[in-house]
């Protein structure tokens, strides 16, 4: 009975045992005394009931670590290499020994097969690499969303807004998130499809209070971020959950290729498209840039410029140094 009484004191019993203990307590004074003993023994633990706060950015660091896992390779090109149908042996010329002729055909066939197989394998490897980079990039954006979402949880559903005196450029959202404790100071989230470290990637060097000791710490995020839009009075309005465009509000995306213009066709960090993170946490791959609200181009506002949108449904994402 002591075990059940202790469990009752801890509220650790299932409903049936709880009912049994309560029935016993009504009729047995010694049971009540034992219960009181256990409650006295547990009472001091209440002094430490508050628990421990996790270190800033723990969730984001966890997601970043998971995102860094090797992504299971997509299935390579299906099926065995295509082997050309063996030709029927031609009639041997009278003056060429049959052995040599057959040998030449064998070599030619083998060469064709080798070329075909190499092409298929190489193509399969490249596809696997592209698929892996695409999936890793999507995981990066999910990591990004966790910090953004955590910030919104603490700021009345508003995501970081750029364009203010302390956050003049699109890349400043990184500093906002690091200073809010949503990310560690040495965060690095860069699209794996970027061939070289992108100088336009948002870099943030935290001050001494935030930076761990050691080599200079730079938090880097290699994705474009929303520039917000201009309200009726011309003031900047940042993104928020459930905003005018709802789930279609793009928050971040792959950095656009240098020659992006509406007439240039798809942006191509992933060879024909880009990943986009939306306000509801969805990450999707698109082959076009016109995936904002009502088919809006997410990299330019309605005036065709990389600036804040001109109205609530005018999405515009900027690189680190772009200003609203």
């Amino acid at each position, binding site marked *: 009975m*002591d*075990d059940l009484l*202790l*469990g009752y004191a*801890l*509220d*650790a*019993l*299932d409903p049936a045992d709880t009912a049994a203990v309560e029935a016993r307590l009504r009729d047995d004074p010694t049971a009540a005394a034992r219960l009181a*003993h*256990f409650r*006295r*023994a*547990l009472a*001091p*633990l209440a*002094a*430490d*009931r508050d*628990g*421990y*706060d*996790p*270190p800033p950015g*723990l*969730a984001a*660091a*966890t*997601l970043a*670590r*998971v995102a860094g*896992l090797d992504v299971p390779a997509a299935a390579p090109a299906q099926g065995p290499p295509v082997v050309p149908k063996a030709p029927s042996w031609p009639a041997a010329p009278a003056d060429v020994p049959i052995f040599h002729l057959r040998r030449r055909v064998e070599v030619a066939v083998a060469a064709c097969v080798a070329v075909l197989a190499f092409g298929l394998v190489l193509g399969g490897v490249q596809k696997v690499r592209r698929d892996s980079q695409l999936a890793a990039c*999507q*995981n990066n954006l*999910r*990591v990004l*969303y*966790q910090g953004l*979402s*955590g910030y*919104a*949880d*603490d700021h*009345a*559903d508003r995501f970081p807004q750029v364009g203010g005196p302390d956050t003049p450029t699109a890349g400043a959202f990184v500093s906002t998130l690091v200073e809010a404790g949503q990310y560690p100071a040495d965060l690095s989230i860069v699209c794996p499809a970027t061939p070289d470290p992108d100088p336009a990637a948002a870099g943030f060097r935290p001050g001494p209070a935030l930076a761990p000791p050691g080599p200079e710490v730079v938090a880097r995020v290699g994705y474009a971020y929303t520039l917000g839009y201009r309200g009726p009075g011309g003031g900047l309005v940042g993104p928020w*959950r*459930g905003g005018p465009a709802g*789930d279609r509000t793009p928050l971040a995306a792959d950095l656009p290729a240098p020659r992006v213009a509406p007439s240039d066709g798809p942006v191509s960090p992933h060879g024909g498209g880009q990943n986009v993170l939306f306000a*509801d*946490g*969805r*990450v999707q791959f698109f082959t076009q840039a016109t995936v904002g609200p009502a088919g809006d181009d997410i990299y330019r506002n309605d005036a065709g410029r990389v600036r804040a949108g001109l109205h609530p449904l005018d999405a515009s994402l900027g690189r680190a140094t772009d200003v609203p």
Partner: protein
Amino acid sequence: MAPVNDPLAGCSDEDLLGRLRAGDRDVFGPLVRRYERELYGYLRRYLGDEDLAADVFQNTFLAVFTKIGQYEPGRPARPWLYAIATNQAIDALRRKTRRAERTADPLAPAPGDAGEEGRPLFDLLAAREADPADLAEGLETRRRVRDAVAALPDLLRQVVILAYFQGMKYQDIADALGIPVGTVKSRLHAAVAKLAAAWDEVESATDAE
């Protein structure tokens, strides 16, 4: 502050694990955030080291991500997650113990600061001098409680933390630790007896002063 428009707010933990198992990676982040404070707090108490707890927390969700295929849809999520976390924590403690060239004996007091192993609970409770900056009595009491729990043998500490601080039911604790419910009960009983003895020693020492 509870988010107003979180699309996953109405999803149970079991739903999230089921969706993750089905390939919906978008739910992994929300799952991590849901358990960030709770599981970190559990690991911090159990391991007694904030860096180790953070490391094990990450390893836990690495394991969740890579082993999600082992999750049975509909199975209670919380014990499953705690089982993974506890196993990761035990492994971490063993590695730490091996590094310190000590034998891991689950019935011995938990590895702690050098020189404290084998000391009576009373000494552990009373020996820590108050930091001059700690003026509030509540802080000192909290420290004593943490020390007392940390001084419990490993297997007893597990059940106390899960039952009292994490608020889990006997069956969930049994599922999380992979032991029978009867073993949970007996370990809890032994743990509470040790804690009661510890409080009595402190009170006796205080009265003597």
